[in-house]
């Protein structure tokens, strides 16, 4: 599978990362090498193998529905680059 500039451009869009033209060409050649290396996994027959997404048996964890102490609005917004009236602010999407 070849990773060309257009693929990287599309994936960078999905990942919401702006890349310069230079980054785009360096990344496509590096990712091409990496993916070729990773293709080694295709040597193995894994049709009967179950995937491991987690090493431990993971179960749902429930707790009692009781209020606990959490961050107040001031603490929660303490690191926000922009805020107003107790909310995070973001660029306008709808005009």
């Amino acid at each position, binding site marked *: *599978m070849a*990773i060309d500039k257009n*693929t*990287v451009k599309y*994936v*960078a*869009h*999905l*990942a*919401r*990362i*702006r*890349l*310069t033209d230079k*980054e785009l060409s360096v*990344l496509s050649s*590096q*990712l091409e*090498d*990496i*993916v070729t*290396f*990773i293709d*080694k*996994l*295709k040597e*193995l027959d*894994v049709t009967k*193998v*179950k*995937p*491991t*997404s*987690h*090493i*431990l048996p*993971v179960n749902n*964890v429930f*707790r009692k529905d009781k209020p606990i102490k959490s*961050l107040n609005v001031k*603490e*929660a917004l*303490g*690191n*926000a*680059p*922009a805020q107003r009236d107790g909310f*995070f602010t*973001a*660029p*306008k*999407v709808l005009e």
Partner: protein
Amino acid sequence: MKLNELTAHELIEKLSKREVTSLQIIDSIRDRIKSVDPKVKAYVRVSGSKFLDSSVVTRQPSSFLMGLPISIKDNICTEGYNTECCSNILQGFKPPYNAFVIKRLIDAGAEILSIKNNMDEFAFGSSTENSCFGPSRNPWDLERVVGGSSGGCAAAVAADEAIAALGSDTGGSIRQPASFCGVVGIKPTYGRVSRFGLIAFASSLDQIGPITKDVADCALVLKLIAGFDSADSTSVNIPVPDYSRSLVNDVKGIRIGFPREYFVEGIDKQVKEITLEAIEQLKVLGAHIQEISLPHTEYAVPVYYIVATAEASSNLARFDGIQYGLRSSAEQDSPDNRLISMYKATRGAGFGQEAKRRIILGTYALSYGYYEAYYLRAQKVRTLIKQDFDEAFKAVDCIITPTSPSVAFKIGEKIQDPLKMYLSDIYTISANLAGIPAISIPCGFTRNNLPVGLQILGKAFGEEMLFRVAYTYEQNTEWHLRKPKL
């Protein structure tokens, strides 16, 4: 010996006899940072930090650690102290809470240093060169890397700029720098230590662990930070043993395996010789050594770079310029709407090259049409790698390997070739994929006086066996007592 040169257990003894105060220890650490950190760069945001000009000890003198200072990797949340993962995108981030491990240390009476240890951005790397603050330098040879990603922790401990440190390990990030710097580091079993407050890289692989000057300190710090935490859904509720009881100088009858796949191509000749000598020494001390096979070893690196980057691409979606850190302005001429344009500009400016590379690789592996070919297949091969270990542990109590195929390489040597850099994690990655514990201890020096690390891997929740074997080896050798000249 100066106080900063001592181990945690030696200092705890002195503190309890009232021979020293916590303030004196912190002063000695500060003096050492002032004199050698401009060369080593184990800490970040040092200039402008209040830490260098005033001493405040806030802990109870009656507590277990009595104000013993501990230094922390820049990706573990410390309330009110900058925690930036050495990334521009988290510039100025001050967590409003402490990680579970920090709470535990504070409760035990530790003094948490307000300046943090350098690391590869978001723990992406094996050399600490991917830090937005620039690389740390190896105390044994300032032209060489410290390893990574917990390189600042390992360098600080090796250079006596810290008594002990907490790092994190996703594919070797505690063990490989410990090996490059000649100190001790353990990656605990997955689920043994809470990840609450560790800024996530790959959630199914990440674990926090100590980097220390000797095995006894490693056991001491792990005991303090291990245990169940309801805030981490993958934390395991199994009682924490008293690891100090594992510090027994005896390996008679212990069955140790060495995997033949780890001693073939790609390994440095001196590293191989030194590791084989260490194995020979354990044999002399009474251990039963046998060759074993981990047949899927060569697939560990490709599996890791799918699983870890996929999880990272998802975890790093939160850095969007809204909740914390950097925000760049939307571009005027962008075809996207202003919100998406702001995301792209922020992430384009805030992430370094390796972070971008990994997020894009991970997004690619998870994207439509490639999910089955890459991500699902990698998860299946992960099962095979885990089964290799399950099989091996039927015959042996622990497994010994080199920690890294090489000693510390030169700064700049691998940074332009990501694949070459990834392959330097070949011996450490499998433990994360299988979820098992692994420790690295010093086992010798090359002719150029560079440290070599020995890795011991054990069964899940079998840290006691690792400490016993590591302690025995350490008590019968003197590698851990050597200090770099700075």
